[in-house]
């Protein structure tokens, strides 16, 4: 294959990755923004999403699409409920103290991981995609006959991958609408800006925290359900999303949602492209390096505001 079509293929892989990463990172970003909690267990909520998706799909009968749709609805809700419970049982008890919540969520990480290992086991388990047609992609060239549309052999994607990208965009738009158009979103933004004043105007901050922590984890789970037909569920799969989400949130600017999305696209796309042309390790090295430079030269992130 020529360079052009190859780049198109790599960009598509990157876009799928960016889509899932955007969902996961936005979840981490909302939790950090509103609650000032660095959730080290975020990747485990992602993993739980994938595991629950497998679980739900393996119970469902009939067409794979039925299991998948059930998983898409149930897995994020279950994960959200678990996270909300963790907020009430653990984070509230340490009074959302920044250092103690880091230690607490590290503990949560290991508990979730080990319980999953004991119940779900060490195998990687697949979930069937609801549909998976191969789609050949066109390319163009300027040959003897001038401009021509060609269909290079091997240049193609699947309908499911395109669906992942579209679904992620739809979910992100819904999150944006929730934050900017609903009462809960208003309460979340007010709590983020001034927790005490939020209370002085009747906002039940504890309830906002429970919802936000559940919501953030649910977004990670949603990303995982979307990717599990491509990647398989495994109890150690939470590490990469956690690292990448942190990278994205730092590059985008802590607490800035639009920055998070832009950074997710940047990191996801470059990760996809670099992984395909060179190696996945190089992709990770480069994005970690980028974080280091951002921390040195623009600590507030690309879109974040300088702390007053």
């Amino acid at each position, binding site marked *: 294959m020529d360079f052009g079509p190859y780049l198109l293929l790599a960009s598509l892989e990157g876009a799928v990755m960016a889509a899932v990463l955007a969902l996961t990172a936005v979840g981490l970003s909302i939790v950090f923004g509103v609650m000032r909690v660095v959730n080290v267990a975020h990747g485990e909520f992602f993993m739980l999403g994938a595991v629950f998706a497998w679980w739900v799909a393996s119970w469902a009968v009939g067409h794979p699409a039925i299991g998948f749709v059930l998983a898409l609805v149930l897995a994020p809700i279950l994960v959200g409920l678990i996270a909300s419970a963790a907020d009430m049982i653990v984070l509230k008890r340490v009074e959302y103290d920044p250092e103690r919540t880091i230690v607490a969520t590290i503990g949560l990480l290991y508990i979730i991981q080990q319980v999953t290992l004991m119940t779900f086991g060490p195998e990687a388990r697949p979930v069937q995609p609801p549909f998976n047609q191969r789609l050949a992609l066109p390319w163009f060239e300027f040959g003897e006959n001038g401009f021509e549309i060609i269909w290079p052999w091997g240049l193609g994607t699947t309908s499911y991958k395109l669906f992942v990208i579209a679904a992620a965009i739809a979910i992100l738009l819904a999150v944006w609408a929730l934050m900017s158009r609903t*009462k809960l979103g208003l309460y979340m933004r007010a709590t983020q*800006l001034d927790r005490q004043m*939020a209370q002085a105007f009747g906002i039940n901050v504890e309830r906002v925290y429970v919802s936000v922590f559940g919501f953030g984890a649910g977004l990670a789970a949603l990303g995982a359900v979307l990717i599990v037909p491509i990647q398989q569920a495994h109890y150690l799969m939470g590490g990469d999303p956690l690292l990448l989400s942190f990278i994205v949130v730092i590059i985008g600017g802590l607490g800035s949602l639009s920055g998070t999305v832009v950074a997710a696209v940047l990191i996801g796309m470059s990760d996809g492209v670099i992984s395909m042309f060179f190696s996945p390790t190089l992709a990770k090295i480069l994005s970690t390096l980028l974080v280091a430079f951002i921390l040195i030269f623009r600590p507030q992130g690309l879109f974040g505001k300088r702390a007053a």
Partner: protein
Amino acid sequence: MLELKGVNAGYGAARILRDVSFHAEAGEIVCLLGRNGAGKTTTMQAIMGLLPLSEGSVVLDGEDISRLPAHEVPKRGIGYIPQGRRLFSELTVAENIEIGLLTRGSSKQTREAVLELFPRLRERLAQRAETLSGGEQQMLATARALCLEPKVLLLDEPTEGLQPSMIELIRNVVVQKKKDGVAIVLVEQRVDAVIEIADRVVFIENGRIQDTVDAKVLADDHTLLTRYVGV
């Protein structure tokens, strides 16, 4: 209406307020006077339930509100205009007002009435609060609190850094609310700005109430003012 009974409170281990007691009745303006660091803002926060009381109680219309979770306190009808305004900076003027309205489920009429008081806010509904001028920010902080249709209004240095015409506007609002039967607790540094409108003055020093006097008495006798606030 509002009564503090032997309130002790502070930040963490640091005890700031000691046996603070005073009351404000409907249609009355009580002014809290004291030097910087005397504990005026702390008193306001204790009333709002933002600080845990180690002793004492805050009673509103016979109900002890000091044991309520903080977000329940404003729902009983206490509007708070904090020192330094503390608006929701990245939210718009309209959203800040909306939060005030949601506190007690106030009606559209309340919103209209409040915007009637501050027409400049109506022109800037879509503007972010942090981009307002200082005077406009104070209007918004006041509007946000009035959106609760409060029975009790707490104002912490509302005239800080304002020009005379703006001070006049805020003062008119306070006097109007007094006429409407609202109990008002007002913290002020500028004694002359309050002496004419206050009914009673409470002097606070090192977190203790030193004296409570009628404003009329104070107007004729300046020795107390010299002693507690040094003017």
